[in-house]
Structure formats: structure tokens, C-alpha cells
């Protein structure tokens, strides 16, 4: 195009400069729109925890609100998913967890640093961005949606009685979406994740709430978890299982949990 006039080159230059200015303004204004106000300022313990987070390069592997490393799980909601006690144990000896999967190095944090880091993760979980993202819970593990054992369960239930089939379906649902109870509840005695261990729930449910039968208690705990919060735990369980699960799935889960006896 040797015939381009000076005027058209000037126009091209003006177009270019206008685009650059608009591009930078959009990025700048778009970014400024998300600067948190003073109300969102970090409490001291969380701010200290953020320094621990940075000093140990946590963001090299983990992300918060989907931004950061992708070598390890996103930790936006890890505090409400696992709770203080579990995370404290995990941070003290991470290699003891997930023995067959990717392992986290041991950072040898002091007790104070661990407390600060937990305060930071708690704060992260409570920010407005955490309400918008992710669209559904991201589990670290324990969902087992495509594991061979679950697949086998699905096929073998054909030969079982209806009661046994319900228990098997409930067993699969316990560790797979959309229920995925195993993310927050252990079936082992004295192993506390975000929620109480459900080991022995079939026995405890009989006397947990006077006048309420065990199956009704479990059903209510799934559909309206705020009604019966176990002492020592906070009311953090998802409230949408009535929408996420159909009545058959809830009955299957109850059938499975009623097999979880003490001893």
C-alpha cells in the first residue's frame, strides 16, 4: 500500500492511541471497581496470616478466588470445608494426609504462624468474592465420582434387595456429587473434618433429639441443618441439599447412614 496518504496514517495513529488509552482505562477502572472498601480491611491476625501465606510461597501452588497456582487445590473455602482442627493437623504433618495422591511439603510453621494462617483463610472465606465464586464447591478429595469402586457399586446393585440397593446407592452418594458428604464428614471415629464424624450416627440419632426418631433426625439434618447443630460445631453446612437432592437420594443417604453403628 504505497499510496497511503499522510492523512490516513494520522488517522491510523489516532485510532491506535485512542485504543491504547481506552484499553488502559478499562483495565484500570475495572480493577479499581473491585478495590475493597475500609470495611473489608484485614483484621490483624488475618494480615499476619497473609504474611505467612506469602513468605511460604503458598500462592505458587494454591489459588484464592481462582487466582494463583494450579498445582494444588483452590483454598477459597477450605476453612469452612475443613475447619480449624483438621487444618491444624494437616499443616503440622501434611504428608500424612492423602498418602496416595499429590503431597504438600511440610513447612514447619510455629503454632502462632499456624493460627495466623488459619485466621487468614477464615477471612478469605468470608469476603464478598467468596460468595460469587466458585459456582459450586471445589473438593480437595473424597468425592470419588468416577472411581472404579463406585462404578462397580452401580452395576452390582442390580442383584441386591431393594433395601441393600438403597444402602449402596447412599454409600456412593456419601462420597460423590451432588451430596459428597465425605468432604466434611468422616466415617471414622474421632476424625473431625469440617463437620462432626458420622461414625455411630445410627446409634446416636436415636437419642439425639427427644421425640424425634433417628431417620427423621438425619433427614432434618440434611434438609435443615441449622435446626440441630451439634455442640462444638458452627452452622456452616450447605443449606441447599433440599434442592440438590431428590427424595430418593435423601432416603438412600439415610439408609446408608443408618448402617453406621458404634463398634
Amino acid at each position, binding site marked *: *500500500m*504505497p499510496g*497511503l496518504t499522510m492523512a490516513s*496514517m494520522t488517522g*491510523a*495513529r489516532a*485510532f*491506535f*492511541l485512542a*485504543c*491504547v488509552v481506552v*484499553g*488502559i*482505562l*478499562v*483495565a484500570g477502572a*475495572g*480493577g479499581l*471497581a*473491585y*478495590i475493597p472498601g475500609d470495611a473489608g480491611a*484485614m483484621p490483624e491476625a488475618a*494480615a499476619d496470616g*497473609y504474611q505467612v501465606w*506469602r513468605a511460604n*510461597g503458598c*500462592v*505458587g501452588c494454591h*489459588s484464592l*478466588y*481462582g*487466582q*494463583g*497456582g*494450579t*498445582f*494444588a487445590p483452590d483454598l477459597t473455602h477450605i476453612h469452612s470445608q475443613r475447619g480449624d482442627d483438621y487444618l491444624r493437623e494437616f499443616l503440622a504433618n501434611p504428608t500424612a494426609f*492423602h498418602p496416595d*495422591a*499429590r*503431597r504438600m*511439603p511440610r513447612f514447619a510453621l510455629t503454632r502462632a504462624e499456624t493460627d495466623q494462617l488459619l485466621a487468614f483463610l477464615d477471612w478469605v472465606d468470608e469476603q*464478598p*468474592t467468596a460468595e*460469587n*465464586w466458585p*459456582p459450586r*464447591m*471445589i*473438593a*480437595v*478429595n473424597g*468425592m*470419588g*465420582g*468416577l472411581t472404579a469402586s463406585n462404578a462397580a457399586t452401580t452395576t452390582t446393585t442390580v442383584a441386591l434387595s431393594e433395601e441393600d440397593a438403597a444402602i449402596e446407592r447412599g454409600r456412593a452418594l456419601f462420597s*460423590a*456429587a*451432588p451430596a459428597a458428604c465425605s*468432604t466434611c464428614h468422616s466415617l471414622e471415629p474421632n476424625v473431625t473434618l469440617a463437620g462432626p464424624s458420622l461414625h455411630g450416627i445410627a446409634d446416636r440419632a436415636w437419642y439425639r433429639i427427644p421425640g424425634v426418631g433417628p431417620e427423621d433426625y438425619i433427614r432434618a439434618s440434611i434438609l435443615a441443618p441449622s435446626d440441630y447443630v451439634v455442640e462444638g460445631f458452627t452452622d456452616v453446612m450447605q443449606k441447599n441439599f433440599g434442592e440438590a437432592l431428590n427424595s430418593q437420594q435423601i432416603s438412600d443417604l439415610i439408609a446408608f447412614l443408618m448402617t453406621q453403628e458404634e463398634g
Partner: protein
Amino acid sequence: MEATRESTDSGAHTLFKAMIALLVVYALVALLGAAQFVDDRTLAGVMPYHQVGAWAAVLLRLALLTGLLGGGLAMIETANERTRALLPWLVRGWLALLVLAFFAGLLGLLEGRAGLELPPLLDVAQVVLLLGFIGVVADGTKARDAFSLVWLLGMGIVAAGGLLGLLLTGDALRDQLYGTLAAGLLLNVGAVLAMVALAFGLLHRTGALYKDGAESSTYFCGGLLALAGGVVTVAPLNVANGGSVLLQGLTVIVALFAAVIFALRILRAANGARVLRWLALAAVLLFGGLGLLGALTAVEAVGRWTLGTRLSDLQTLLTSLAVVAVGLGAAEAARENALREEHRVLRRGLAGAPFWLVAVGVIVVGVALAGAGLVQVYLERVVGVGYLETQEYLAPLYAAWIAGLTAAGLGLLAFGLAD
């Protein structure tokens, strides 16, 4: 005049060699990181992933900046005494920065809000050196054609992004915000602008485009891509906060349009010459990174599912590799200019191998990581399989990633050895 060209050509050649060396090291470090995605047991003892990942990211960023600086020096037409005196010091300073950054990564000293920043002193030195190079190129390209103007503006934005990256507030949300903006401005806007200037400058210098056509394309594509870079930069924040629908729409249109226009102009002009093949590769990579993935992940309905997966990593990686490809094209052009005709003929037979190794390697990397990202979204976010279990299903795709990285690394090594 001849002394000036020798001085700037020598500086550019040194920087191009440094870029290639840095890319070979990057390929090795990235390989170590990729291998840990498959098996972190045996390799984690060598260096934990959070160090490997940060090291690889810094090496790639410095490599692409080094290529852009070399390309900028190659544009210099005249330089006064002061510039001739300053240039060798700037080049030495930049090489020293590269060496220090290498050791900072090796020793696990990289820090910052995204884990990708150099230690603060090196970050400051980087900005100062960038400004020095900008001054030298501004002084030596007084004709102010589109190539030098767009390169100068692009590198100015890169330096500004580096400065923004130095703002640490101690507040996690603010730091994440500034970090996202700094990294986005640096790569998506500044580096891409400088890349566009070098690409069309090369098309003109190799005779594939008349100067007027190359200049107008530089302005047109540069403008569109800067706009695209701006909106793509803010897109992750918008998606995570459930933000503006208008911004999402703007991003989709601008990012796709800009990347397609750039690719078409490059591919139409590229005539199969060895130098221009690198530009064609850059056009394809930029279309995948800033264009397709930039547009798709900016849509809230998509981005909410892809944020934090291998797909969001890939957007940045492909855009970075596009800039690197143009840097390699500039290095190839500088090398050809320095060779006498008989050597050129001798080299012609073998010279295609490094390009094809790199091209096939990065495309395999792109396809493998895109596949891994899609599977991750489906298993982890739709079906609800846990993160750790999902990673086990991705092992074959990570193996393809390793194969691609190996091929690209070998290609880069061959490219460097051919010099």
C-alpha cells in the same frame, strides 16, 4: 554511522543470545515442573513445585522481555556518542539481572503477591534498566515510524506494569488486584504492543510488506490488541466478582476481532521465509491465548467454571509464547543479516528443524493443557470429583505436555547452537 550499527547490532545480538539461553533454561525448569504434575514423589525432593513454578514463570517473562529489548535495539538507526557509551552498560546490566534472577529462582528467593516477582531490588533494577533501554531506542529512532513509536509505548507500559507490581499493600485483596493488573498490563498490553511493532517491522524489513502498509497495520493491530489486552486483563476480576455484562461482551468482541485481524495480516503477508514463519507461529499462539481463551474465559458463564484451572494458566502461557516467537523471529533476522551469503546458503538446508521442533512442541503443549483444562472443568467442577483425584485422570495429558516441552526445548537448543 557504521560504528553505530555495529554497536547496536552487537547489543541486540547479545540480547538475542541471552534470550535463547534463557528459553532453554526455562524449558528445563518448566519440564521439571510439568514432571511434578505427573509424579511429585521423586521430583519434589529436587525442588518443591512452588519454587519451580515461580522460577519458570520469571524465566519466561525475562526471556520475552529480553527478546523485545533485542528487537528494539535492532530498530536503532543512528545513535550519538552518549548512547553508544551507555548501551554496553545497559546490556551488561541486563545480563547481570538475568544471572541474578536465575540464582534467585534456584535458591527459592522469588517472592511477591503472585509468587512470580523478583526480589524487590531486582524488580527495581529491572524497571530502571527497561527505562534505560527505552531512552536509548527513543534516542536512536528519531524518525519515529510506527514501529519505534509502538515499541516505545509498549515497553513504557511494560515498565509501568513492573512499577505497579512493586506496590505491596499488606492487604490480600488489594495485592491480588494490583498483581493481576500489573501482570496483565505488562504482558497483555505492553509486551503485546512491542511484539506487534517488531512483527510488522520484520515484515517490512524482509520485503513482505511496503512500509506504509506495515505501519498502518502496526497502528491498527496494535490499537486493537491493546484494547483487547486491557479488557482481558480485568476479566478474571470481573468474573470472580460476578461483574459487568457490558465488559464481558466488549471483551469477547474485541479480543476475538483483534486476534483474528492480527493473524490474518501476518499470515497473508508471511511468504514462507524462515524469519516470517516465526511470526506465523506467533499469530497462531496469540489467537489461541489472548484471542480465543481471552474471550471465552471473560464470559462469566464460562469463566466461573474455568477460573483457576489449567485453562486460565494457558491463556497467559500462549500469549507469552507468542511474544517469544516474535523475539525468535527477530533473532533469526538479526542472525541472517550478520551472515554472508555463502553461509546463508549453507545453513538453509538444516535451519528449518529448530523452528519445526519449537512449533510442534508448543502446539502440543497448548493442546495438552487445553485438554487438561477442559477435563478438569468437567470432572472437578461439573461432576464434582475431588481436585486430587482429577489430577490423576489428567496424567496422560500431562505426559503429552512433557513431550511437547521436550520437543520445544530441543528445538530451542538447536536454534541456539546454530548461531
